[in-house]
């Protein structure tokens, strides 16, 4: 799967010029264009997994891309549960992906456990 942007769209024509921004996701630097949403900038940078499910750890990323499903929530500059698909990239933004959270009190009951997809 190659990522990146559609530089020459057959209908919309060439990509208009936009200022380049840089931001970090989990410590790795990425570049983005002015007006990119965090989700699209990461997708263009080849990142599809924005977080892991808090309990089962299954990889999650963009789903509805219109701010409805909360699947793309990340931590941006210390603020958690921010929807990447609705948030525009700002220069030097630091984004952290969602990780599995400890479940110290959960006993493994027979119907529990991660579904085998």
């Amino acid at each position, binding site marked *: 799967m190659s990522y990146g942007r559609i530089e020459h769209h057959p209908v919309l024509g060439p990509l208009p010029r936009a200022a380049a921004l840089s931001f970090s996701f989990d410590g790795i630097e990425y570049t983005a264009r002015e007006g990119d949403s965090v989700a699209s900038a990461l997708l263009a940078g080849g990142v599809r997994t924005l977080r892991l*499910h808090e*309990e*089962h750890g*299954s990889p999650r990323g963009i*789903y509805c891309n219109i701010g*409805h*499903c*909360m*699947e793309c*929530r990340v931590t941006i500059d210390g*603020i*958690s*549960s921010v929807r990447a698909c609705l948030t525009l990239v700002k220069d030097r933004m630091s984004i952290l992906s969602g990780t599995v959270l400890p479940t110290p009190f959960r006993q493994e009951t027979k*119907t529990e456990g*991660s*579904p*085998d*997809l």
Partner: protein
Amino acid sequence: MKDASIIVCRCEEVTLEQIHEAIRQHACSARETKLRTRAGMGICGGRTCRPLLDRLTMPSEGDSLTDFPLKVQPPVRPVSFAEWGQSS
């Protein structure tokens, strides 16, 4: 597709099989299914699976709907306690 691989509640990752299991074992209403399986308690506020839960626990045709369907829980959008505290 087998029930175990069909996810009904995306936020809490509750599968159709887990819900069927809860309903079969405890013959529970939508609200009880939600409490037992956590389906509908996720950060999206049950937007996706609330209607599904109501449908799954609906009595067979003809019976009157004895218990209440699940209601949409406020807040409409997730609010952190920090933000909540500041607004009052």
